């Protein structure tokens, strides 16, 4: 057990070391979400009537936070696919280390990167008018939620990265997963404007319940269309917790199994 923790810590440390050796990595993974904040805030902000005090930016920030942590999946998948392609996973698997340490170390490392990214986004959001109206504790809780969600999504990335085994394929594959997931949601525009059948999909989407949970924690009201009154719309917080547990319960064992059978192309 002690070995397992220290093995995972070595892998996490490797990722943080990468960031210090290639500072551009951290720079660009922070600039991108900030760019999204500014683009959405000023491009869509004017034309979407939110009916909420404080304007679009209040609704946007939780959405963009969730989108960003959902994209953790891509970072994990691409990173692991690259390790796979270069034979690094082979080397790790030839070492006397716990079978899950490498992937857990990776997901924790990617999760840790989110702390930096979310902080930068929060500051950028504040600068363009984002003002949560809830208590400091609730805001803090919201960020904890976001980090756990990012960690859960990262496990889906493990499975994708180890399955596609090539960096460039991983980049494309994750886009196909994450884009519909984050856009077919309430993150950027209210679901009430979508065709009715799509509203069901969008409102049951884990990204939507996460966004709704964060909005609640940041002191906003949620609007639901087709599923108004149902469990996820009434209890986005609880529903999000269920989703996170579900994602981890499915993808952690699958990912670890995949790692153990991983074979370089």
């Amino acid at each position, binding site marked *: 057990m002690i070995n397992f923790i220290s093995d995972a810590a070595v892998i996490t440390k490797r990722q943080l070391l990468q960031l210090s*050796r290639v500072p551009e990595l951290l720079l660009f993974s922070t600039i991108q979400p900030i760019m999204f904040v500014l683009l959405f805030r000023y491009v869509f902000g004017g034309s979407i009537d939110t009916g909420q005090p404080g304007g679009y930016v209040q609704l946007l920030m939780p959405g963009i936070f969730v989108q960003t942590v959902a994209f953790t999946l891509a970072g994990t998948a691409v990173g692991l696919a690259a390790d796979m392609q270069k034979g690094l996973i082979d*080397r790790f698997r030839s070492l006397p280390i716990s079978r899950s340490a490498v992937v857990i170390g990776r997901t924790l490392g990617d999760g840790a990167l989110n702390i930096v990214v979310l902080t930068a986004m929060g500051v950028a959001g504040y600068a363009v008018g984002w003002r949560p109206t809830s208590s400091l504790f609730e805001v803090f809780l919201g960020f904890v939620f976001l980090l756990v969600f990012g960690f859960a999504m990262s496990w889906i990335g493990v499975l994708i990265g180890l399955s596609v085994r090539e960096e460039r394929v991983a980049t494309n594959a994750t886009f196909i997963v994450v884009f519909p997931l984050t856009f077919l949601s309430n993150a950027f525009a209210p679901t009430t404007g979508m065709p009715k059948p799509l509203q069901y999909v969008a409102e049951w989407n884990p990204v939507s319940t996460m966004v709704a949970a964060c909005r609640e924690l940041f002191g906003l009201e949620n609007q639901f269309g087709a599923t108004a009154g149902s469990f996820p719309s009434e209890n986005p917080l609880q529903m999000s917790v269920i989703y996170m547990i579900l994602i981890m319960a499915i993808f952690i064992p699958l990912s670890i199994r995949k790692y153990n059978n991983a074979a370089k192309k």
Partner: protein
Amino acid sequence: MKAVIAENLVKTYNKGAVKALDGLNLDVEEGTVLGVLGPNGAGKTTTVRILATLLSPDSGNATVAGIDVLKHPDEVRKLIGLSGQYAAVDETLTGWDNLIMFGRLYHLSAQATKQRAIELLEQFALSDAAKRPIKTYSGGMRRRLDLAASLIIRPKVLFLDEPTTGLDPRGRQDMWGVIDDLVKGGVTLLLTTQYLEEADHLADEIAVIDHGKVIARGTSDSLKKQVGGERLEIVVENEHLEIVKDIVARVSGSAINVDEGLRQISAPVTTGSKALIEAAKMLDEKGIHPLDIGLKRPSLDDVFLSLTGHVAEEKKEEEASVNKGRRRGK
């Protein structure tokens, strides 16, 4: 004692369509070097991957340092080092970072890891490059660092999968020097290669594999005898053929081969360049200037030709499966 034993290993890919290993048997005596020689797709890498616990065979058994690879892979991992065809190190990190990371993953203490990293960097002439990212290393330096990473725990058995493939001649020479030193240190080594010259230089014994099976095995000398070893070849004008036949027969001491059409006389020799010089001197004394004179070393193709009757097929697994698919399609 045998440090490595593989018995009847069978491994197929694509649901049996591609047979990578077809009942492969081999063993390595403790403290010796076995060179596994074969063309691409012969099953070299698959063999190494199975022995290094990365892959399970469909059937067969394997032990490394007396431990069952399939039953106790974790125990085996504590005793082996693996360095592959591709330098499996983190390129964004420095050489130092990499060695520290792998040392920690082998559960050495922080102090012991640092000490070992310093030793290895020194041993592999990488001390000056220690603080540079691997990205900036030459191909040869990367391989050396990769090898260093696999030696952190002083493994009992070391697997090197094509350690010099893709290196320039200088890099290859450096790598050979490094491996020579290791072997002198007493490590048991299984190395795969496509180059007869490399197996000849580094290995005590050579196993030639083709289509997932060992088709010949022995010392480099015994294999060369089978193949015919080095041959002295001289091409002369027709008028000198008779005299040169005589010279070659005297230098070689064995049966000569005459190709009248090519005006070429050849014979196996055992003394290498000495034989060449001797023959050249004799020709000079007789005032004969050959059109061509040289020593021909047996290549992988010669080995394969004499052992299998066909030339070494460079077949990749994927290509093999495509070909099979096509054949079935007909």
